[in-house]
């Protein structure tokens, strides 16, 4: 049997859709575990990246963060925190937030730092204050890249939240980890399929979001990472 037949057989069993730990419950859990750290990381990362991009201070730090961030094995970080903190909210929230910040910050920085100096001067010449330059000119121009950063982090957070099932977190990763533990491939395949669908929905969400919020004149410039 192939992956899809295993996954389909398991996903279509009605017993898996009811009761505690059912598919709908774990989907909701996964969304919550993914959205919360992403939100916190955005609240920290976007203003920090915009500020560094606007002032140019701390740019060296950002450049090093951009690549070095990927070297950290998330599984190792998760188990290390479990050993020290036991299983608490901080155990999974802390690494998810910390690791979701770099892509958001780096892209916000690059978006703002990459604003055409002519445009920047024009805004200044038109009598805008520093705050107005940032909020009305630089951030709107940087929006496509800011969204790329958010998308990269969202993908990363979904993946790490799935992995966190290994240390006891709920969500769709539970099906995969529990299935592997009990040598049952049905839930493993079903869980993996649902995770894949969720990941595709996250991509679609950000594609839609960029259509909604990016100014029409900038849409063609959206870079892909």
């Amino acid at each position: 049997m192939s992956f899809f037949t295993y996954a389909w057989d398991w996903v279509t069993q009605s017993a898996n859709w009811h009761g505690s730990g059912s598919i709908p419950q774990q989907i909701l859990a996964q969304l919550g575990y993914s959205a919360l750290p992403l939100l916190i990381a955005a609240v920290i990362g976007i203003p920090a990246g915009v500020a560094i991009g606007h002032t140019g201070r701390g740019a060296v730090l950002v450049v090093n963060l951009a690549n070095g961030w990927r070297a950290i094995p998330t599984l190792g970080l998760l188990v290390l925190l479990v050993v020290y903190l036991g299983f608490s909210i901080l155990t999974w929230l802390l690494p998810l937030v910390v690791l979701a910040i770099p892509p958001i910050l780096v892209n916000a920085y690059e978006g703002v730092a990459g604003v055409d100096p002519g445009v920047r001067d024009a805004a200044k010449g038109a009598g805008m204050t520093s705050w107005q330059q940032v909020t009305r000119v630089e951030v709107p121009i940087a929006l496509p890249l800011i969204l790329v950063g958010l998308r990269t982090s969202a993908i990363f957070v979904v993946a790490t939240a799935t992995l966190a099932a290994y240390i006891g977190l709920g969500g769709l990763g539970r099906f995969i980890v529990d299935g592997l533990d009990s040598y049952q491939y049905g839930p493993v395949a079903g869980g993996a399929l649902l995770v894949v669908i969720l990941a595709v929905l996250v991509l679609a969400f950000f594609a839609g979001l960029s259509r909604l919020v990016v100014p029409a004149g900038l849409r063609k410039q959206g870079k892909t990472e």
Partner: protein
Amino acid sequence: MSWTWISTNGALIWQLTREQIYIGVLPPLIGLVISLPLGVLAVRWRWFYPPTLTAVNVIYAIPALALFTALIPALGLSDTNVIVALTAYSLCIIVPNVVAGLRGVPAAARQAATAMGYGPLRRLVTVELPLAVPVIMGGLRVAMVSSISLASIGQLIGVSSLGYLFIDGEQRAFPTEIYVGLILIIAIALACDLILVGVRRALTPWVARL
């Protein structure tokens, strides 16, 4: 940190390190070999690129644990499974960079090569690809670093690597083991990154050094 554990388990650590390097380093290299023709095709036939880019974005969004487990019926709980999955991720990073690198070749350089009588293949190999090296290398570096770090997740489907130290360290509540795994993986990633920077400099002696 328990230094005695480290000194008595040197053989195990060395074995796991070698496995980690094998599973982590091979995929981006295979990915590079596949990405070059794919990127060239995507530049040559414009219609080929948007669907490729969509496919690449979707694959890259799939969490490693889900991709490893989805490949089990086809490839089993084997090294091949993890290497194939990590190669797919590497493609996702390297292909767009190959395309960006080739598209960034100055038209003047291309025209000069044509004017000197270079055919399309010779122009590609001796002019366009060398000029695209910095951008392609940028992609290879990202792919290399993330592949090395992601390889440790293969341990969850039983594929041995330094990830073993994470699982074992967690079960025994023994932080030393986890630290050793973390530090070695980051060290391998940084070392490979430095090597790639060196290779890029050797390949592009005309680029100003910063």
